[in-house]
């Protein structure tokens, strides 16, 4: 049922959203690497005044097994206030939770309960038949529906990957979003400059390139994705591709400016095959065309071979592996995860062309295994991976698993399971917040969504 006044978690502009109250709960996707038990949504208490602060207070098992939860999103967000197709009286209430491996999409109700409750499952057959896709990944609440990116094609086809549109009330698959995909074949993340009718998509690999682990020959052969694609959001057509250069393998997460009058954004590149460095690129629109420029480069760290997994021993170094990044809602701070070296970096990006590093924290890492200050004696595996920023920009949350098969290659002893919170003013860990180990009941945590919205959940139509 619709509301009489707009959902209080919808904000017209990013500056309004930055004044939002602090989140009280965080939802975390957690998956079972063995695929023998159901994956789950874990709910963490993020209210510092609560006695249960920093602990798992809610838990919902998925109905099946082998889903490999990864990313997820809300049924509605601040884009509902956009004037072209306003529907401000719907509720931000349902989590749309795709299984990246199973291709099932789950809809969970979060209203008036701690542990979400399943209301619908979209079977892989429906996604395949209506949209022609499999391996659903990123979810964004758009002006006229839910957009879900997918890595693979239907009926065993490897590709092309692309975007499916879901009805945002019935949650039925409406169809394939692209009318003309041009040269685009690989898919991964997407987002938009909503006010300019521009959609951006990035590239990872097809199902066979990722599901059994990173394939060394493909990486050295520069076969993983290395391009950005720019689309007309209204006409649903491909406009331009920007090639970062095939040495820059795997541009993944896309973080456009929240300010709807600005046409730039950041994308992280996992690794360069030339020197194992990772990088962050800025895309921008200048001289009538889309361009991209490397604005941050993070070098590999030399390490003794006995500290390295077999996949890295020939190189004698740990690649930073930038696998996620987050841009604060006010577009002033960029947080970059280095999952390989176990580091989270904070940059001032008030001038997006010239990021300035402000701080860094260490936790986990392939060679370092840095402990969390809450348990200084406990060496940690995995590294900061998924990173999410609160709407007011004061808190950052990280979890430590990348993707099952890839976890195993870079952390052969397992990544364990942990989540951490960093206060951004001091840029230090909150020692009261460290759910880890058995808290996740043997599952590995991945994306975090904050109650009411976060820095990667909402888009705004008004400056």
């Amino acid at each position, binding site marked *: 049922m619709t509301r009489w006044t707009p959902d209080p978690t919808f904000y017209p502009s990013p500056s309004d959203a930055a004044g939002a109250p602090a989140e009280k709960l965080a939802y975390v996707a957690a998956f079972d690497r063995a695929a023998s038990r159901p994956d789950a949504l874990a709910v963490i208490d993020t209210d510092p005044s609560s006695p249960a602060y920093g602990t798992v207070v809610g838990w919902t098992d998925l109905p099946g097994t082998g889903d490999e939860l990864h990313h997820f999103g809300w049924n509605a967000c601040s884009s509902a206030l956009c004037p*072209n197709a*306003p529907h401000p009286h719907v509720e931000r209430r349902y989590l749309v939770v795709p299984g990246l491996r199973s291709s099932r999409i789950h809809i969970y109700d979060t209203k008036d309960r701690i542990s979400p409750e399943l209301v619908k499952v979209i079977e892989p057959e429906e996604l395949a038949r209506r949209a022609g896709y499999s391996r659903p990944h990123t979810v964004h609440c758009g002006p006229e529906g839910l957009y879900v990116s997918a890595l693979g094609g239907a009926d065993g086809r490897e590709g092309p990957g692309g975007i499916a549109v879901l009805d945002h009330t019935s949650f039925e698959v409406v169809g394939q979003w692209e009318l003309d995909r041009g040269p685009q074949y690989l898919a991964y993340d997407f987002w938009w400059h909503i006010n300019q009718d521009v959609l951006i998509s990035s590239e990872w690999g097809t199902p066979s390139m990722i599901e059994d682990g990173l394939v060394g020959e493909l990486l050295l052969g520069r076969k993983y994705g290395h391009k950005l694609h720019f689309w007309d959001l209204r006409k649903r057509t491909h406009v331009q591709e920007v090639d970062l250069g095939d040495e820059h393998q795997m541009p993944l997460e896309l973080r456009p400016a929240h300010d709807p009058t600005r046409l730039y954004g950041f994308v992280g590149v996992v690794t360069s095959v030339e020197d194992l460095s990772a990088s962050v690129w800025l895309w921008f629109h200048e001289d009538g065309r889309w361009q991209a420029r490397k604005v941050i480069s993070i070098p590999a760290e030399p390490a003794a071979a006995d500290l390295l997994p077999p996949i890295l021993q020939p190189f004698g170094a740990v690649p930073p592996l930038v696998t996620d990044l987050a841009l604060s809602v006010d577009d002033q701070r960029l947080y970059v995860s280095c999952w390989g070296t176990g580091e989270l970096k904070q940059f001032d990006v008030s001038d997006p062309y010239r990021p300035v590093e402000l701080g860094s924290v260490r936790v986990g890492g392939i060679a370092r295994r840095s402990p969390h200050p809450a348990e200084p004696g406990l060496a940690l595996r995995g590294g900061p991976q998924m990173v999410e920023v609160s709407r007011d920009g004061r808190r950052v949350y990280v979890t430590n698993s990348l993707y099952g098969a890839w976890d195993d290659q870079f952390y052969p002893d397992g990544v364990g399971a942990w989540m951490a919170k960093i206060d951004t003013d001091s840029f230090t860990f909150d020692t009261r917040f460290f759910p880890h180990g058995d808290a996740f009941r043997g599952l590995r945590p991945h994306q975090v969504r904050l109650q009411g919205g976060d820095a990667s959940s909402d888009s705004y139509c008004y400056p």
Partner: protein
Amino acid sequence: MTLATVLLLGAFHGLNPAMGWLFAVARGLQERSMDRLLQSIPMIALGHLASVALVALVVAATGSLVTGTVLSVGGGVVLVGFGLWRLLSRRHFRWVGMRLSLWQLAGWSFLMSSAHGAGLMLLPVFTGLHAEGHPGHAVSGGLGVAALHTLAMFGVALAVAVPVYRVAGLAVLRRAWFNVDRMWAVALVAAGAITLAQV
């Protein structure tokens, strides 16, 4: 009484963010340009006028073929039905895209007004006009009503959009954007019932 109803309904449409003024403000904010806002509102009013006038013309044309009673009953049934559909349907009108030309904006407004049943709301007035006079009168009278209605809508939309753009800011939306769609659906049903009661 009728004139006041026509103007009040126009004002009500002008007040509804979903029917235009909000898009005008957004277009102004996109380019930080008051001119762009001021150019947008007349086009939105034009689309609204077309939507309302269409209903007026349909009523006038139908009225020359059937008796006033049939028209009133038919109109009443349409209103109640449309109102119930708006009330119970969970769908909302869709039009993708934020970068529209001025003519596309007029088209958007036409579709938005039609989808919200803006012209239908005036059905009791249009059928009343028909019952009073001869068909020619119904056409000119109906279009006159549509024009007056749109003028009121235009005035209110302008009166809301400019201060919101200049002073108030859009945070006001979060509290003040009352769900007029739902209220509107109830009103449509009521208008239909009134039309039927007059028969």
